[in-house]
């Protein structure tokens, strides 16, 4: 990292400090919420004795072996020996780097081991987003020509996601957002002009509103804020069931969810709780090289 990069990192960190102070909570409101939570405890089953609890859970713990993550870990270890180290390094690999093919291969493996359409769609969105991150990272390193393999892979994931869209229409906005971001990044293939030194405020030309509008979203990191405000993937996920297979999980960008008890649900479920499979000791994480 150059000194300039370190300096600008520090500037961003200082800017983040403007968010540190939080106004005091309204005591009545906080207390009311606490009481509501305590009241909700009454709807829980009766407490289970420790002994009985462990007997009941031992069997299900044995059965939920997280087969998919074990499979991936075994394959990695058998192929590469130092599976954990390799997986860790591959996860951050960029196009052109030695471990990048490993990263792509793990993504393909995860897709192959995912069964529900919704989970496959989420994986494709995750991987498409990862391609955008890679492009942005390359740009930050001064590489503005997008490797064709990245373009092809991005298009592949978008096409796959689109093909799964009819039964998962709530993801339409997200797909559009990714396409927009990709188009913006493609447009950045020329090296940006050097920024002018800021002058005195009095020297600044008057800014036309159209110029400001055109500047919006010129960098690929902008997320679609949601052109279609009706599209609320989170809403559909506020379901009564807590079954992760039945819940909208568009934020699950780490782990697939095959829909079984050993579902490595991943932590991305926006409107559901991450389940037990979303944990860092999940062996699938070893292969989660995104």
């Amino acid at each position, binding site marked *: 990292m150059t000194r300039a990069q370190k300096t*600008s990192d520090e500037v*961003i960190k200082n800017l*983040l400090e403007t968010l540190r102070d939080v106004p005091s909570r309204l005591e009545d409101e906080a207390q009311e919420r606490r009481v509501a939570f305590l009241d909700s405890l009454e709807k829980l089953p009766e407490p289970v004795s420790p002994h009985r609890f462990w007997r009941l859970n031992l069997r299900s713990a044995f059965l939920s072996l997280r087969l998919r993550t074990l499979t991936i870990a075994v394959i990695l270890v058998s192929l590469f020996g130092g599976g954990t180290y390799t997986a860790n390094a591959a996860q951050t690999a960029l196009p052109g780097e030695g471990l990048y093919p490993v990263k792509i291969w793990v993504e393909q493996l995860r897709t192959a081991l995912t069964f529900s359409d919704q989970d496959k769609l989420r994986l494709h969105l995750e991987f498409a987003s990862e391609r955008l991150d890679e492009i942005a*990272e390359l740009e930050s390193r001064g590489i503005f020509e997008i490797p064709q393999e990245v373009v092809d892979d991005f298009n592949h994931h978008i096409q796959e996601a689109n093909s799964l869209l009819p039964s998962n229409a709530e993801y339409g906005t997200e797909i559009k957002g990714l396409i927009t971001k990709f188009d913006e990044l493609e447009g950045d293939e020329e090296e940006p002009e050097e920024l002018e030194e800021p002058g005195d405020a009095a020297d600044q030309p008057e800014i036309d509103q159209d110029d400001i509008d055109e500047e919006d979203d010129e960098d690929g990191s902008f997320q679609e804020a949601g052109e279609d405000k009706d599209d609320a993937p989170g809403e559909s996920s506020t379901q009564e069931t807590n079954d992760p297979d039945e819940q909208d999980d568009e934020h699950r960008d780490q782990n697939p969810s095959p829909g079984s008890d050993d579902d490595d649900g991943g932590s991305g479920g926006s409107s559901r*709780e991450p*389940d037990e499979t979303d944990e860092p000791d999940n062996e699938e994480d070893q292969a989660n090289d995104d």
Partner: protein
Amino acid sequence: MKQEQRLLSDAKRFDRAALAEIYDLYQAELYRYAYRQLGDRQQAEDCVSETFSRFLSALRGGKGPQQHLRAYLYRIAHNWITDQFRRTPPPEVDIELITISNPVPGLEDSAIEKMNAEKVRASLSLLTPDQRQVIMLKYLEGWENDEIAAALDKLVGAVKSLQHRGLAAMKRILMKDVEAGL
């Protein structure tokens, strides 16, 4: 960590006292975490309530974390906040910070800081969910990389990568002012 594990074990047995203790232990920091991103008291309270509601739902369904309870709760909160951004995108804010080179005459320092905080919050909302969570947990919540990895269910290497990309994205969003050397 031992306390957390004990509480989690008891919570899974539906021990009321343990569940109440978990609520009291984490509700304030979750509120701060939510407020820093949402900038709204009511929404922050809703986030806390919904986080614990979903936690209880998970326990009722025989699910929930095996360990790393705190990280698990933060993940729920993060997911809820991300949902909020999708359902109700934050109001458009002129991202350009108020600086020496871009002053707004007549504003007091406290007002400037508040307005810039909104702009920084707006820029955070434009990051990917994972980038935003890493940036928040690292720089505002003070978590170590291994704790963040637990919260995101990722490897530490991926956390570092997200940190770098998140900062780079914020730099691009706020670039003019960063270059001016605030």
